[in-house]
């Protein structure tokens, strides 16, 4: 991809492909320019502070979503009564786009941290809970039945079979969910923020600094890759028994 980018940026092949004139460095700065401005942003413009602000919001918003969503999701997937009560509500709210809540959340929480975290929560909590409910509901019935024949009570089946059988799926869906957290965070920061990667993107766009915009987007990509690697490592560490883990 970087190869294509470099080719388009340095040779000016874009108009021939019917794209806007990307040869113009204003529209598409070269990889070198972007690398340089990324360095400048970290070295002179306090970009690290913005990265940290965004990461912290993600961390908090995601942790709160997971802390409520995981137990609730497992309960919905395991117990009919809980499912009957919560699932319709959550399924409905899930269809309401989190970004549509932003104006309301600004009125409720102001324009600072609480509002950002609330946006992430609304964007992540509802779908995450449903995915985790699916994980718990999808535990093979045979495992549950065999536990009953071995003398387990309902409670023991929950603690000793349903929970341990759910954990790998829970972690998988957390990995998916944290991706959504990034999406909603940037949306929230684009609307109102005084720090954060989204804020940097927005101010760079006011000054037409495309190189900075691209640098910020690449930073998000790298952070995403790192998070993904972290989750994969956790999976490997926590679930050595999984068929997917080889060692």
């Amino acid at each position, binding site marked *: 991809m970087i190869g294509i980018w470099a080719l388009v940026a340095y040779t000016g092949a874009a108009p021939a492909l019917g794209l806007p004139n990307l040869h113009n460095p204003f529209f598409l700065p070269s990889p070198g320019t972007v690398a340089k401005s990324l360095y400048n942003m970290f070295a002179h413009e306090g970009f690290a502070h913005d990265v940290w602000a965004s990461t912290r919001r993600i961390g908090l918003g995601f942790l709160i979503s997971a802390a409520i969503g995981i137990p609730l999701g497992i309960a919905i997937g395991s117990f009919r009564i809980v499912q009957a009560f919560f699932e319709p509500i959550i399924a409905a709210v899930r269809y309401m786009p989190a970004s549509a809540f932003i104006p309301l959340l600004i009125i409720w929480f102001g324009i600072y941290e609480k509002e950002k975290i609330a946006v992430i929560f609304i964007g992540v909590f509802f779908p995450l809970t449903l995915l985790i409910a699916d994980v718990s509901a999808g535990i*093979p019935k045979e*495992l549950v039945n065999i536990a*009953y024949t*071995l*003398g*387990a009570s309902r409670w*023991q089946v929950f603690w000793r079979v349903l929970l341990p059988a759910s954990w790998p799926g829970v972690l998988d869906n957390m990995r998916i969910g944290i991706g959504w957290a990034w999406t909603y965070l940037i949306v929230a920061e684009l609307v109102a923020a005084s720090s954060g990667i989204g804020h940097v993107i927005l101010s760079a766009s006011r000054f037409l600094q495309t190189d900075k915009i691209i640098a910020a987007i690449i930073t998000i990509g790298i952070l995403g890759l790192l998070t993904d690697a972290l989750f994969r490592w956790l999976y490997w560490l926590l679930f050595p028994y999984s068929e997917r883990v080889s060692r």
Partner: protein
Amino acid sequence: MSSISVSDVSMVFETRRGRVQAIDRVSLEIPDAHFACIVGASGCGKSTLLNIMGGLVRPTSGTVRVDGRQIHGPGTDRGMVFQSYTLFPWLRVRENVEFGPRLKRMAKEERRRISDRLLQEMGLADFARAYPKELSGGMKQRVAIARALANDPKVLLMDEPFGALDALTRAAAQRFLTQIWEQHRRTIAFVTHDIDEAIFLGDTVYTMTPRPGRLREVIPVDIPRPRTLDEFGTPRFGELKRHILELIIEHENRGVSQTAAAP
């Protein structure tokens, strides 16, 4: 003395396409230390019958008794082994075997003694610390049998436990189960659609026919034990097999001609 008896059990499923009679008034009694095989074509209700005996499915009518006492759900007096691999993947082999004793809060040393002995018997002593994913299909089923035996059940209920194994592994598993049975002398109900398997293993073969699932005939297997692979070639084995096949095929043909005669 441990026997399991089924009296007048019927099972009706309500499905979208109407009522399906899966089992129609089945009664049987498996005496103590007896190896009973239940054979029938797929869909004849044999697995449902076994699940009812295990207490996992509540019959529409009829009762199941273990040693004369009626059952009302699953219990440790009946150990089950299924065709699908049902080991808990997050537990090591030894922990799988000790699952039942742990639920009973048995002391660690005692649990360990039980699992040591069973793993030894199953030839799995070297795999005590392995996870199920590291085992072959045949080994997984041996662990599943050990796990069921760890609870010291009165009756073993087995639902095509070797159905997913390849032919060679399956033959080895059958001989192995015979040895285990001779040591432990448990009452066993063993469901299969493999007639050879049923004759080789069973003291008695119960044949079932589908739609509705009915007990067709009870055939005592008068081949003396210990049985070896040579039995498969004996005339008596052939006669029994032919007889059982006829019972099942005759029913199938009747089904076909009925369909053909329908306007």
